[in-house]
């Protein structure tokens, strides 16, 4: 069992698109897969047509004896389940602060599910807070979409520093270039500069209208555009990630 977080400090970089499409890919290959929509914006829940609501909200969720099991919903795809977002996730920070081990709560909640699932994907909100610390503690792998711009690169640096400072050695950080636009000179330049270091995954996700369409189709790219470049990119991204552990 592996817990995989799709994370970035920045919003709008492709975290949700990545989490949704990789989880779909894993499920298609036969793995029992869960995706937890941790972002109160609820984009992942929206893509799967599932109401962003959990019974009792964050308050009940963080109670000592709470269980995730009966909050899980089946998606339209076999082997793929979703734990929906809830509006109250906005106040998760406060709730966590009241706990005894405030950074271990997510891990505690996920532990009973590790028997049932081969992969648990976490679709994360773009913050660097106690919620993210919980994510860092729980995840085995953190995939980070990075738009090839200097600003994005700086936020990646911030993240690495944070992890080093907070002794998060168990966590392997796998950045990849997201929303790459071939026509943009700067994108190409930045990618070229970083290539020799081997820091980024080889597979990039290009800017593609097929991915943009997810909001309309409310489905995984591989479902409605199986033979598209975008679908193939996610498939090989997932392959490359699996080779990295």
């Amino acid at each position: 069992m592996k817990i995989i977080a799709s994370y970035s400090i920045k919003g709008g970089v492709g975290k949700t698109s990545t989490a949704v499409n990789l989880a779909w890919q894993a499920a298609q290959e036969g793995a029992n897969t869960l995706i937890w929509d941790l972002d109160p914006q609820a984009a992942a829940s929206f893509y799967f047509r599932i109401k962003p609501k959990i019974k009792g909200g964050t308050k009940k969720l963080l109670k000592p004896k709470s269980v995730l099991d009966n909050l899980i919903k089946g998606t339209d795809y076999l082997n793929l389940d979703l734990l929906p977002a809830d509006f109250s996730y906005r106040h998760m920070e406060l709730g966590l602060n009241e706990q005894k081990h405030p950074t271990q709560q997510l891990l505690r909640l996920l532990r009973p599910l590790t028997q049932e699932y081969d992969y648990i994907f976490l679709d994360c909100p773009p913050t660097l807070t106690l919620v993210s610390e919980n994510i860092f503690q729980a995840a085995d792998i953190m995939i980070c979409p990075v738009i090839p711009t200097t600003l994005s690169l700086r936020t990646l640096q911030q993240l690495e520093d944070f992890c080093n400072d907070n002794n998060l050695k168990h966590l392997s950080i796998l950045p990849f270039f997201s929303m790459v636009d071939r026509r943009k000179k700067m994108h190409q330049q930045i990618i070229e500069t970083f290539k020799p270091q081997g820091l980024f995954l080889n597979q990039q996700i290009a800017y593609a209208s097929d991915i943009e369409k997810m909001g309309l189709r409310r489905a995984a790219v591989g479902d409605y555009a199986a033979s598209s470049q975008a679908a193939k990119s996610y498939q090989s991204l997932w392959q490359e990630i699996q080779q990295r552990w």
Partner: protein
Amino acid sequence: MATLPNNLFKLEEGQDPAALWEQINVHYDLEKSITQTHDSICYDSFDWRLFLQGWQLTAHNKKTAYESGQNTAQQTECWSIILESVDGQQQYARQSLKQVPTFAWDFPDSLLKTQLQPILEMRALLAHTHLHWVVQTWKVLDDEQKTVVRLQLETVYVVGENSEHTCLGQALRVLPVRGYTKALQRVLQIIQAQALETEQKSWLELAWRQTQQQPGSYSSKLNLQLKPDMPANIATKIILQRLLDTMQENEAGTRQNLDSEFLHDFRVAIRRTRSVLSQVKGVLPKTTVTRFKPQFAWLGSVTTPTRDLDVYLLDFDKYHAMLPAQVQPDLAPLLHFLQQHHRQAQQKMAKTLVSKTYQKLIQEWQQFIHSPSRAHPQIPNSGRPVIEVANENIWKAYRKVLKAGKRINDDTPVVALHELRKDCKKLRYLMEFFQSLYPKDRAMRSIKILKDFQNILGDIQDYFVQVEHLQSFAEQMVEEGTGSSRTLLAMGVLVGHLLDLEQQARTRFTERFEIFAQETNRHRFAELFKPQKAKITKVITKATQAGGA
């Protein structure tokens, strides 16, 4: 007993699911999804060991097709083999393999293998039912177009030997989507309102009805129901018919060597038949007895070489393990020798079993069994109640065993033990033939007592015969030039081992005989089998003696 899991609804013949879709459509959108086909083949041993255990072994070749339609379906050439309870409610083990192995020992090491091995032992897995499934999936959608329930319309066919498909019917399976219990309840309500009953019989049972199979129907046991006052000649024919049935049931499997147990059961039926001919005295016409006795002796003897080699092959691992590790590889040529000779013996036997001589024997024997039985003054016991004849024969055979057993001590030549073993076997067969005439638990108890005693005699005999065989194998291997000196030496070590074991078994004989012949057991036998007349005369003599004193 075997019910399909809930949420399965049988459609009546010719019932159109469209009416149902309409009803569901009032509340939900319905979307037609993929159609999948797959095959499932159920396996069991000839004697239904898995079924009798409450188990079911099924191999599925599911072609994994994705719901998303556009994805090219990945075809798996793999069989997913599942061991589960007969009702399908509990799964014990599963494994994916390219082919379904014939024997439990052919499975790769796994939970499935460890579950199957002690039950199947030497029996082959035979395919008994082949089902073909066409499954059409429909999605029930909520107002967000989210799938909340899946419906599967299953059309199931039973596939015959010449791959002809017979439709068993259609059923609707309702598959829940996690977290959507309300929608599930609602859909179930709609379907139930259409008066579709949950199917009680499983597809497998329907298939059995179609193919006229009766699981658990074969048993090598006699399982007769004789009545004490039946005329002896009629009861005897019932026994003989049952034995002939067993022979015929096992004949094809013996010929094809599906597994070694067919021949074993075939031979037991022959031996029992011979035993009836010689042990049930004065019941069958003399001419019949003298005519068929040598013929069944012949039939037994043509099957002996194959069986002897079977026994060796089945025990080979045991022999292997008797040797020190560094000598074990030297035994390989013996295995090769056994396999080769087994093939030849098997071929020869199979030929005999299709020969005119054999067919004529079976035919004439059947004719005799079917011929009307009339009690005849020249056949003294033919019309007597079977219980009397049974008592007399069993009692006589029992007394013979007791007498012979008492005469045996440590210095008695081994032949005497072999004779005793034969006497015990005769007694055992008689007790089994007539078992149903006696109170069940007491009959079984006395058979058990005899069986325990037979075990020691069987061991002594087996070791002795194995030594003799090994010696003759060695001679043959030398003649054929297939036995290297190392192999012969290894076989020599085996012979030494077996002689030791025989000796050890012999030392246990006296103790076992004493248990068999102890007073409480003698009482048991007397109470059950001692002929009434003898009992009465004894009581009278006792009474008169008492009176006279």
